């Protein structure tokens, strides 16, 4: 009986789809955000009694309220984007580089070391070049160690890169202890009076140079991944190592080269954070961005252009959360709950973009 066959089919069946028109997929995402905002509104009313519209408008003010806030938002966006761009080629190659945090830290540490030892005894431009070179090198070395082990002995790169983060953190603690004999564990601003090794302000904006550098890296990464031969090799290795081998790609070489690139950009981020932003080094200089970057990169589907948008969303939510906490005298955790809900919906809706849910009846009609 044909009935019998139909009944063995599950009530809900999930199938992959790749035929969704672009506007439909964006509609799904917009609906997800709206649903998230509605849910957040309910939570805001229930837990705090504030007017959600007011809360949302304060949230928007967190990024756009004043020109200072706008610059801070752009700066945070640039830093997060820079690290996200760094992990992207590795992820595209299916090399799980969880070690961006550590690679950024050692890059920053190298910059800080040069600033600390050289001080103002060198031509400013030469000093900056040496600092940049040192941080790129540090980032590359930190990324190449796990890549080498992966290429040579196929070790698990997720664990390896993760553990390298802790080593980097301890290394920073160690050097701060050497550099600050008082034992306060606080480096303070390096070269506060001479400003030696500080990236210059351009047009009177201290973050502008950082932002422009990251913008250039974004464009370069977009072109590299999409149009270069090496970018193509990365996608092939990511899709299937055997295919790559078959068509004559040297997989080990691609792994090492790509991780080197990943580490170099992390090193650059460390350089920008120390020389262009904080002018100091602490164990929290990377501030968890090395992990957030993973989410930015995945949400952006490893596409540098979309990642600009995804890092904007994350930074916008973070800045908004801080603003809510201050303005409404709420605990920072409450603001984080709202951010969490919104992110959950944004990530969750990708499921509906990528998969189709077939009900048993719907399926029959479809036939």
């Amino acid at each position, binding site marked *: 009986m044909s009935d019998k066959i139909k009944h063995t089919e599950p009530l809900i069946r999930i199938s992959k789809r790749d035929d969704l028109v672009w506007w439909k997929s964006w509609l799904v995402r917009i609906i997800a955000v709206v649903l998230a905002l509605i849910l957040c509104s309910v939570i*805001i009313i229930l837990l705090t009694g504030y007017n*959600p519209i007011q809360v949302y408008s304060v949230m928007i003010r967190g990024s756009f309220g004043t020109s200072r806030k706008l610059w801070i938002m752009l700066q945070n966006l640039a830093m997060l984007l820079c690290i996200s761009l760094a992990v992207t080629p590795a992820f595209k190659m299916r090399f799980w580089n969880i070690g961006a945090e550590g690679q950024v830290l050692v890059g920053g540490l190298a910059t800080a070391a040069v600033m600390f030892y050289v001080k103002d005894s060198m031509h400013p431009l030469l000093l900056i070049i040496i600092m940049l070179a040192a941080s790129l090198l540090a980032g590359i070395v930190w990324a190449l160690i796990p890549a080498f082990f992966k290429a040579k002995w196929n070790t698990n790169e997720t664990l390896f890169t993760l553990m390298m983060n802790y080593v980097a953190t301890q290394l920073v603690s160690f050097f701060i202890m050497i550099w600050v004999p008082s034992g306060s564990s606080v480096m303070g601003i390096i070269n506060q009076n001479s400003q030696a090794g500080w990236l210059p302000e351009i047009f009177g904006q201290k973050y502008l140079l950082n932002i422009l550098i990251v913008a250039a890296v974004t464009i370069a990464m977009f072109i590299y991944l999409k149009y270069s031969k090496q970018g193509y090799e990365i996608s092939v290795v990511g899709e299937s190592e055997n295919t790559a081998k078959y068509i004559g790609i040297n997989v080990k070489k691609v792994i090492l080269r790509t991780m080197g690139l990943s580490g170099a950009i992390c090193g650059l981020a460390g350089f920008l954070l120390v020389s262009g932003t904080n002018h100091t080094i602490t164990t929290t200089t990377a501030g968890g961005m090395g992990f957030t970057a993973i989410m930015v990169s995945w949400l952006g589907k490893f596409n540098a252009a979309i990642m600009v948008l995804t890092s904007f969303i994350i930074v916008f939510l973070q800045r908004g959360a801080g603003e809510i906490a*201050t303005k409404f005298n709420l605990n920072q955790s409450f603001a984080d709950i709202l951010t969490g809900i919104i992110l959950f919906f944004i990530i969750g809706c990708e499921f509906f973009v990528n998969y189709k849910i077939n009900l048993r009846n719907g399926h029959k009609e479809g036939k």
Partner: protein
Amino acid sequence: MKKFLAIALVLVMALGLLAGCAGDPASNDAEGGNDSDFKVGFIFLHDENSTYDKNFMDAATAAAKACGLTDDQVLFKTGIPESDQCYNAAAELVDEGCDLVFADSFGHESYILQAAKEFTDVQFCHATGTLAHTEQVPNFHNAFASIYEGRYLAGIAAGMKLNQMIENGDITADGAKIGYVGAFDYAEVVSGMTSFYLGARSVCESATMSVTYTNSWFDIALEKEAALSLINDGCVLISQHADSEGAPKACEEKGVPNVAYNISTISMAPTTALISSKINWQPYMELIIKAAQDGTEIPYDYCPGIEDGAVELTELNTDVAAPGTQEAIDAAKEKLVAGTLHVFDTTTFTVDGKTLDSYMADVDTDDAFTPDTEVVSDGYFHESEKRSAPYFDIKYIDGITEK
């Protein structure tokens, strides 16, 4: 297709509005109209989950209330790291109209100083810092408190307890060994542990102390582990200078008496908590708020003591403390206030077997951390008199050893 997009967008906006209207329209107006435009902003390293920051936050809230400020006049920024973000937080508070900005963590200092130099109309106060007395920026101020006096008194409670244990035959006089969990071997910590030890030894002559560092200001697991290893080493009483409840909990598990810092730990360790010393920041915060409101001068480097109510002891746990402890503490406190007793009296301790008759401390911060000021005179080490932040960094006086 474009038409569809437009419709979709309109729909989204309508939904958004609808979601908003569900709210209570009569709710609190964030911009709030009040008669005074005076505002004060606070910058905290963590939030109330850290005992260190909670101590500041409670004081700030209480001081604002005592000064009659409304909620709209007080802005808190929590979770601000010791980086450029601290400068940004300060600048944003100034943008919001704050006339006074306070930051609570040592590493905030250079960023607050940077903001102070830029926004000369706004008063900036920073706790635990060391730069105000040398930088002499008119609107930048440091503050601390003579917490070593509180530590000394808490040490008396510890010494009395050790005496009781010796009398009961639980330990021998030579076995009166204290364990101390420190965060870093920084002057603030060294000063605190030494005054605590001197307080204990003032009543229990045979007391010795073993110190270990966690190299972190806040790490529950590490602090607990450090306390346990000290107990295993034969320490019969524990105290600590770190911001978590790790050590008190380890002591409660092992039944070892504990002297805490910043908060009373009696509720989490009812059978072992003795007493805690703490800085009460409320008087200082009231002082700076009033000064900023009236436009009067704020002391550039302020260090109130036990006589000003800035250094306090929390409630003594009489279930654990030896009889007579409260009386002994009160008597010593009276002498401290009267100035007849000095915590770092050089006749009460030796360094490498010798009396300390001269010591150059690093009072004026410089890149090389050069000792620059003579701090021993009139028979005692003048702690927190040359600047508010502690500078007693002698590791160690005889009787204290590092584990």
